[in-house]
């Protein structure tokens, strides 16, 4: 049976890459270890080697194609004794019946493929969810220990080669309470990343999961199921801040400070005032961060990502503003390095620009808090016993109760509000 060659993940965090060129041609016989193609990521060009021996039957994704999702079939290898006829009716990853979808050949000419689209999933229109993508790499011992502990491997991230889950990962997950939390909810936990069973009939289009979508599904399911969330909302008056912003922005063209930049700095400074809230749950301990790194959720094509403004307590507004612009720009181009979006102590999610008045956000594990920012708008307020108008903004803090108790979260918000309402104090 022909062997499907898929886009490899060159690092645990890689979701897609550019298939730079093919080193082997269709019809070439290849031995295990021969270089088939070169893949480019932001960081490096890597060679894809043949794992099996055979003849390169068909190239599914032509050289030069960008943004090829990991696990997308890129070629079909014929085993010894098979000829091209074995390709008839054979579909990469053993998907749907050939009658339902055009034969791969129809799409493989390459010319009319939109370069942005990951070509292969389109063949999979009615196929099963991709098998390889769902496979969880874990050592036999890790599997066994996880099974005995009633722990879902999908909720564990691996530290072994290529993200393989090894014994220590499972042991850490058990120690951090993952096992206990997951066990009673096993039925609910397990299907979560794979989504509920789709309705058997109806008019719908099936959209294959990207790696980012899977990660979002897995991490946020884990967050809502294992983190005891609670929510605190507070209103902040923005008039002073808006005035100051206007004045600062009028002084120079080198920066254009946004309200969000003030929020980033205010969050870091508030955390600095309440260092015990700058922490995360470590299973049998609490880990209190020494730095004040603020993750900022940025919506991008197909999902979201949280670039981190490091040491935001030590940076001025102009620096934060320019850094954030640069990070958000590259985030949207999918060019962030893992170290630029991993880590962080605290997150900010801002939907104010969409006119959302207030909302509560899901904590971004392993962090223990996220601040949801609503829109700044003119609202009637009572000032000195009289009705007045002010620019107001509601923010909601989601806290991990294992780390942050209600009073602690409230103190954190009080300081945050203080900085926002008296922005001059942020300059100290």
């Amino acid at each position: 049976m022909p062997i499907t060659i898929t886009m490899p993940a060159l690092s645990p965090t890689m979701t897609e890459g550019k298939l730079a060129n093919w080193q082997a041609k269709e019809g070439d016989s290849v031995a295990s270890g021969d270089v088939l193609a070169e893949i480019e990521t932001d960081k490096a060009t890597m060679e894809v080697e043949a794992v099996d021996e055979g003849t390169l039957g068909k190239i599914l994704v032509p050289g030069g194609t960008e943004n090829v999702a990991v696990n997308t079939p890129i070629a079909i290898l014929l085993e010894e004794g098979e000829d091209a006829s074995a390709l008839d009716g054979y579909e990469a990853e053993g998907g749907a019946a050939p009658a339902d979808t055009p034969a791969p050949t129809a799409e493989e000419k390459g010319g009319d493929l939109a370069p942005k689209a990951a070509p292969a999933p389109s063949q999979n229109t009615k196929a099963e969810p991709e098998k390889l993508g769902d496979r969880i790499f874990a050592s036999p011992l890790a599997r066994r220990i996880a099974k005995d502990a009633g722990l879902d491997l999908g909720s564990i991230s691996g530290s072994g080669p290529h993200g393989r889950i090894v014994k220590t990962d499972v042991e850490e997950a058990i120690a951090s309470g993952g096992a206990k939390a997951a066990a009673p909810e096993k039925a609910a936990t397990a299907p979560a990343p794979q989504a509920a069973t789709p309705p058997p009939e109806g008019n719908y289009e099936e959209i294959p999961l990207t790696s980012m979508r899977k990660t979002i599904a897995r991490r946020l399911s884990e967050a809502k199921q294992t983190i005891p969330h609670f929510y605190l909302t507070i209103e902040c008056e923005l008039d002073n801040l808006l005035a100051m912003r206007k004045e600062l922005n009028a002084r120079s063209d080198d920066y254009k400070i946004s309200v969000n930049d003030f929020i980033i700095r205010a969050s870091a400074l508030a955390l600095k005032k309440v260092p015990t809230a700058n922490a995360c749950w470590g299973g049998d301990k609490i880990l209190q961060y020494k730095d004040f790194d603020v993750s900022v959720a940025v919506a991008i094509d197909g999902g979201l990502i949280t670039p981190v403004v490091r040491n935001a307590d030590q940076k001025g507004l102009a620096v934060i503003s320019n850094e954030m612009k640069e990070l958000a720009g590259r985030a949207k181009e999918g060019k962030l390095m893992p170290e630029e979006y991993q880590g962080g102590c605290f997150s900010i999610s801002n939907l104010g620009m969409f006119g959302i008045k207030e909302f509560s956000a899901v904590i971004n594990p392993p962090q223990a808090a996220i601040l949801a920012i609503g829109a700044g708008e003119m609202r009637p307020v009572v000032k000195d016993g009289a009705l007045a108008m002010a620019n107001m903004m509601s923010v909601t803090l989601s806290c991990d109760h294992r780390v942050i108790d209600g009073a602690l979260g409230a103190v954190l918000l009080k300081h945050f509000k203080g900085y926002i309402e008296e922005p001059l104090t942020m300059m100290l």
Partner: protein
Amino acid sequence: MSDMNFDLVVVGSGPGGYVAAIRAAQLGMKTAVIEKEHLGGICLNWGCIPTKALLRTADIYTLLKHADEFGIKVKGASVDLKKTVERSRQVAGQLSGGVKHLLKKNKVTVIDGHGKLAGSGKVEVSKDGKVVSTVAAKHIILATGARARTLPGLEPDGKLIWTYKEALVPDVTPKKLLVVGSGAIGIEFASFFNALGSDVTVVEVMDRILPVEDAEISAFAEKAFKKQGMTIHKGTTVSELKKSGNTVTATFKDKKDKTSSDTFDRVILAVGIVGNVENLGLEGTKVKVDRTHVVIDEFSRTGEPGVYAIGDLTGPPWLAHKASHEGVICVEKIAGEKDVHPLNTANIPGCTYCHPQVASVGMTEAAAKEKGYDIKVGRFPFIGNGKAIALGEQEGLIKTIFDAKTGELLGAHMVGAEVTELIQGYGIAKTLETTEIELKQCMNLCLTLMVRSSTCRCKLFRQHMNVC
């Protein structure tokens, strides 16, 4: 002098140092290695490799003595010691040349001389006691290795009382030989000279030989050595070595303080090693030394920023492959490579190339129990293995230790023919975190020595999949 500024300077070119240097060069660092004697260090020149060459002669000679059993008539087989030693030196020389070539190919600068820390980011190179140059490096790896330990009253003289170094280039086959110490080094020399016809006595202070191995394996090996004619005194120390003319009289003291003595032609001291920490410029730095070995963290960092140590210079186990592995991890960490994990000492195999061979990886039965594991032990003697019987080497034992709860392979211990090759299978299994279930499912070729070990597992779990 050409540019003497490097990203990395490695002091010492043994299996730790040269491997670290090559890995660094591969990762794009400008690298130099400083060596005062031989490229390849002790392992290649005065350790593992030349002893393996000598032991090969011993193995062939032993086979020839038993040729008749295999239907081969051999008359007058004898060992030409001079030629045996020459071959061993030639093997070492060839490999040392190979290291030189590898370093050159990877553009590692080789500096001839003794390296010594000389202030932050600097190494002073001296030759014959005179400073010849100073090189600058962002990172410095100390890989100066170790040498034979000497005990007070038991000093080697290089003539009658040898260390490994003299024992590797013997001028005579001692008629009567005393080996002090029964670790891997002592036992390999004992096995070599015993095969060549020496009357060998081994003295060990612990209550069993090969003390780091599983007790059952130690006992099995001891029995085999005694059968070959060795005399073994356990729980015994040598309190005095008295030279007179061409002989040495040794005084032994056992645990009950009872003394006895015997006279030997030669004595080999193999009572452990001490780290080469002297004259490295460690004084005034934050590098800590504990009982002649440099203290390091899991990524080989010493207390001094930019200074690292690997291999025998650091803690046990003192094995060449551990040094190489440590060097690679250290360098990859320096280079900021991703997914660099500390060395897992539980997965380091150890081998002794005596006859029968001894090999092991992971915990002994006693160590596993001490750690509180509930264990399952599998045993299989070679006498039931087809290949071993056909080879005429049915003396052997494989012992496997599993965690009864998780099925984790905790340790594998072997004595017998070719076990130093077989151990690698268990090494891979252990590194991949295999449990007994996968081992059971893994089919061994019928006619291998390994086939016994699936029986070993079958016995353990009462499942029969063995086809041979």
